């Protein structure tokens, strides 16, 4: 237990002393995850909403495809994007491999289906009669859709938070597309997984504490919103 408690103490000391290297890794993680989530939400929320409120041929197929994309392992996404971005790949000329942007691309592919599917579920849960009520009170179609979106807001926010929680904790994409380059693409997860047995165990523990804290806070917010959401419906 001695070893563990020593590492913990050193890690806390590192967090407390505002260690530059550590905080820069945290910063990269948060900013990459933020942009991934932002981009995935910008496309995923409207996509999920449109699927939920519209009837069109192929809707079932599209839902099945999205559900299937939920099962994409991170390493498969990583490999797939790698094949495009590597020097030998079609998009190799962009020079994006082993940059934060490459991680964002992979993570967007990872969570866009999540955001879309959970937005769709949240919107679908809203009774058709909300729309009818808005219409009979004189709303245009657009306003009626906004009413539905408003009623589904907690579910949509919960979906976005869950997506952020997923990307901040994922490692496969960050490693394969970022390459764990110190000060550039080294995220909390890649640093923890690859550096701890190179003697940077204290850093790994400190990052673990930060990552765990972020994950728990996300989880608490998620549960609070779900609770609120559950009460209301």
């Amino acid at each position, binding site marked *: 237990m001695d070893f563990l408690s020593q590492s913990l103490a050193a890690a806390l000391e590192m967090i407390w002393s505002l260690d530059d290297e550590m905080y820069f890794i945290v910063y990269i993680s948060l900013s990459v995850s933020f942009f991934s989530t932002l981009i995935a939400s910008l496309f995923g929320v409207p996509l999920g909403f449109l699927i939920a409120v519209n009837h069109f041929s192929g809707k079932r197929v599209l839902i099945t495809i999205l559900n299937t994309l939920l099962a994409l392992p991170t390493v498969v996404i990583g490999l797939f994007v790698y094949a495009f971005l590597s020097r030998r790949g079609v998009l190799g000329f962009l020079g994006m491999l082993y940059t934060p942007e490459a991680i964002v691309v992979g993570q967007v592919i990872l969570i866009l289906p999540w955001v879309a599917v959970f937005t769709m579920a949240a919107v679908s849960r809203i*009774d058709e*009669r*909300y729309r*009818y*009520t*808005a*219409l*009979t*009170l*004189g*709303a*245009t*179609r657009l*306003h009626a859709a906004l*009413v539905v979106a*408003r*009623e589904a807001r907690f579910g949509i926010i919960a979906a976005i938070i869950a997506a952020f929680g997923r990307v901040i904790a994922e490692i496969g994409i960050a490693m394969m597309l970022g390459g764990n380059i110190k000060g550039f693409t080294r995220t909390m997860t890649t640093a923890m997984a690859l550096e701890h047995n190179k003697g940077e165990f204290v850093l790994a523990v400190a990052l673990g504490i930060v990552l765990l804290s972020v994950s728990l806070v996300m989880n608490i917010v998620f549960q609070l919103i779900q609770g609120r959401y559950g009460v*209301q419906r």
Partner: protein
Amino acid sequence: MTLFSLTGVRQVFEGRTVLDIEHLELSAASSYSLQGPNGSGKSTLLNILAFLEPPTAGEIRFQGRVVDWREKTLHLLRRKVVLVDQHPIMFSTTVIKNVEYGLRMRGIPSRKRRAAAEAALERVGLHAFADRQAHRLSGGETQRVAIARALACEPDVMLFDEPTASVDVENQALIEAVIQDIRRQQRVSVIFATHKRLEAARLAERRIFLFAGKVTGPGGENVLSGIIAHRPDRSVCTLGPTVELEVRQRLPSGPVRIAVKPEGIRVYSAAERQNVAFTSVLHSGRVLQMTLEGDAVKLHVDIGIPLKTVLSRDEAVDSGIMVGDTVRVAIDPDAIQAVQG
């Protein structure tokens, strides 16, 4: 003035015709009840009249103009007609914001909106509830707020789907009073679906009866399941183990739902056996219930199947029929409407 004029209106859901109206005219500034058993098409008709669901076929004129079911302009029509659902949906915000919603959609400025919404809440007696969360209301209060929300829109027509079916007795009285108030004080037309005959009698100037999607006479009451069989000389419908009614309508053998119009049922006291109307067949029955209905008395007679018919108060007094009496019942074959299935 004609408010709604429906011609050849049919609504088909998943291959099943749930509404089939040849012709129906509704006048402005009047009140109508829509009555009929479950599944007779009441809610479907209300959704069409509210411009929420286009019919599969047929033409609807509203205030003299043919309704164009393209979404682009439909909201302008919808702003003249508000439907209050049986289980109204409240938006997850305050009561007052709910009531203001229709006004906001109409571009009314915020201060005017608030005043109008408060006035509408006042009319349903829920002024004090303005700042409560709408989802916290009881069923009866929700129903009343929904009525206020509709009132605030100042529509030409208010449609209600079973406004008192899901509320307790006290709220029922309050809601009926509000509807009566709307009917009296405004140029608003009221059309409401209901199961309650007494409510229809109290609130409606005119009554529309639906049976299996069709407009019928006021016979939506004696709705029964039977089986059509063909005899050499006539067609009959057997109902239960003992009762057989003659049917004039031509239908293939098999199960049917029938509706017997009350005016086609005559009840004679056991003594009075001469001068019988309609047919030679007399059913023996017992009077189970007599109910006052406006100026008439509704009789509930058991002839092996339950039947309801209506006498005038004078007829009832003259006949000397009392609850519990054994009576003879004649049924006009032409008063029987049958629908397959």
